[in-house]
């Protein structure tokens, strides 16, 4: 069961939404519904799941209904139709009291313009959620101080929000949400009001935090670069409807329609693709102590390649042999690959962006080895593969 299950979620703004709702069900476009009923469709039958511990970025232009959608999850905006289940419980039918308890315990929310309370200190802001829940003062102060330390604001407890920069204010906003230790973080354009450098810092900070805390995060953004960077999956919205749900890769490589394609057209493909996504599995390798020069040569001939990476018995990459080197040494009677292989090879990690690979590949006579964090061979990149990947994605976009 998914952490959050959203089914046919619909929001229509106006006093008598029934007629508009029927038109929504018939699949009438938003403009026509507005013309005929004077009711605006905010969210149009949105359906998707969010898994536990996952970062889902809901993305769309302004007016696409993404902020309305996220507010329907905790009913800051009352949905007109459809259901939202959190851990299997339908939020849309909760009583006022249960809803309040759910908001206190399950959700932490971070707002675009921070929404810090100006009459409270940084610490008092951070402890707000716990205070509302009625947790005892000493305990909530401690948790709030921990949350502030976690976002790098230790020592600022006594300051007022007005004394802080925008980036620091949003850290307070984040700490206020984290202090509750909620299951779900709702982040409504949380970094959009920050200038680009600070925004990037905050994105990194969030990813770092997420490694620690593993929250289920629904993040609203209109910025595709941001979505690609922090999203495990992306939900693309237009005119209140969900257009595509998928991993950043899916969205880039197979846009569901022209709208998505136009959205991703501006993305710098080389920056988004990483060595890990471009590489292919190595077809053949030589293993030290198992394969001798003769076996290595046969493997190369079988796969029609001129070089072979050499691994130790733990699959750690130790070197590379070329067919020419082997031929030379075999003439001299050498039987050990270790004596033949070259060890001065260039490797990259799976995380390396494709833009960094291009200069590395230039002038490299053999494939580029991609290694994981433990130095094992994860795959190889040959020049044609990299260019092909770039061209293919570029052409689609």
């Amino acid at each position, binding site marked *: 069961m998914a952490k959050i299950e959203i089914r046919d979620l619909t929001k229509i703004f106006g006093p008598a939404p029934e007629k508009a709702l029927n038109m929504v069900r018939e699949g009438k476009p938003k403009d026509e519904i507005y013309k005929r009923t004077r009711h605006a469709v905010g969210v149009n039958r949105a359906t998707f799941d969010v898994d536990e511990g996952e970062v889902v970025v809901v993305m769309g232009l302004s007016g696409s209904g993404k902020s309305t959608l996220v507010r329907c999850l905790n009913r800051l905006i009352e949905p007109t139709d459809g259901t939202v289940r959190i851990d299997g419980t339908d939020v849309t039918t909760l009583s006022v009291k249960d809803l309040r308890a*759910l908001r*206190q315990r399950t959700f932490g929310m971070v707002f675009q313009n921070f929404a810090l309370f100006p009459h409270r200190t940084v610490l008092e802001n951070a402890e707000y959620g716990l205070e509302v829940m009625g947790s005892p003062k000493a305990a909530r102060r401690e948790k709030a101080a921990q949350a502030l330390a976690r976002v790098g604001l230790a020592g600022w407890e006594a300051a007022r929000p007005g004394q802080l920069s925008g980036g620091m204010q949003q850290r307070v906003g984040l700490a206020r949400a984290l202090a509750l230790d909620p299951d779900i973080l709702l982040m409504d354009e949380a970094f959009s009001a920050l200038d680009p450098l600070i925004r990037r810092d905050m994105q990194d900070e969030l990813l770092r935090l997420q490694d620690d805390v593993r929250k289920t995060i629904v993040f609203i953004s209109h910025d595709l670069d941001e979505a690609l960077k922090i999203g495990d999956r992306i939900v693309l919205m237009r005119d209140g409807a969900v257009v595509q749900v998928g991993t950043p890769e899916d969205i880039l490589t197979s846009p569901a329609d022209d709208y998505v394609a136009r959205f991703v057209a501006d993305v710098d493909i080389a920056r988004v693709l990483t060595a890990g996504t471009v590489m292919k599995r190595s077809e053949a390798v030589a293993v030290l102590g198992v394969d001798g020069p003769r076996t290595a040569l046969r493997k190369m001939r079988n796969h029609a390649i001129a070089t072979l990476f050499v691994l130790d018995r733990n699959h750690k990459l130790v070197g590379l042999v070329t067919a020419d080197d082997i031929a030379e040494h075999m003439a001299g009677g050498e039987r050990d690959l270790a004596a033949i292989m070259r060890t001065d090879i260039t490797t990259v990690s799976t995380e390396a962006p494709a833009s960094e690979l291009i200069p590395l590949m230039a002038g490299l006579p053999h494939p580029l080895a991609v290694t994981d964090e433990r130095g094992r061979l994860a795959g190889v990149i040959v020049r044609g593969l990299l260019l092909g990947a770039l061209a293919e994605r570029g052409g689609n976009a």
Partner: protein
Amino acid sequence: MEVTNMTALTNMLGMPGAFPRIPLGQWLEAAIDFLVTHLAPATRAFSAVTESGLNLLEAGLDALPPLLVIAFVGLAAWRVTRKRGLGAFAVAGLALVWNMGLWQATMSTLALVLVATLLAVLVGIPLGIATAMSDRARSVVMPVLDVMQTMPAFVYLIPAIPFFGLGKVAAVFATVIFAMPPAIRFTCLGIRQVPAELVECAEAFGTGRFQRLVKLELPLAAPTMLAGVNQTVMLALSMVVIAAMIGARGLGGEVWKAIQRLEMGNGFEAGIGIVIVAICLDRILQHVGKRVGG
């Protein structure tokens, strides 16, 4: 047909006798009479409490040595506003009042203003909160306030007498009615102008309605509410002077006496005393409001 219609119309407009006079005044009088009779126990209790409180306060203020009061007000004006000039003005002004032999009258006026303000605030702030929280309460209270504020102040003096008789309590009553609207309006305004995004944020964290009021709205509305209280004090001060006509003594009483005897000098002296008290109260309260806001 048309001609007869026209005649009927001109009859109605031209001859008041054709359309009976609406006895609005009589109705209101009857209503007030009814209230006077049926609210007698309540008004008597109010009268007793207010009168004894007022007398106590007046006696207390009167018992303080004038020099001490002058020094204290001067110091307070200086410390609160951080303006030495205002401290000096307060000392010089109050000394002048004392010198003119108006000290007792000033203390009496001050006691009336304090009691009336206290009552106006005690009723006005809860009413203001109610109007902020409920649109229905607002739609009832706001028109009443409009009437209260445009009605000439003197008119309040008349019903005050049947309820409380001539004297200080009637004066306090009329003053409370006259001075309360700003306390209500500013409280309502202060709460309603709390930014929507902060209210939304409070909601998102599961804040209850009462918690929202106490933790968010009242603290943020406090500076505006204090501005309202300041207005209430100023209105109370001006009404207390008018209320001299129904037996409130004090500085207003001095002015009223001077009017009746056409004593220009005495009239202006008392008037200047009122101005001095007003300036001291207003400036000090304004800065208290700013402090809370900062």
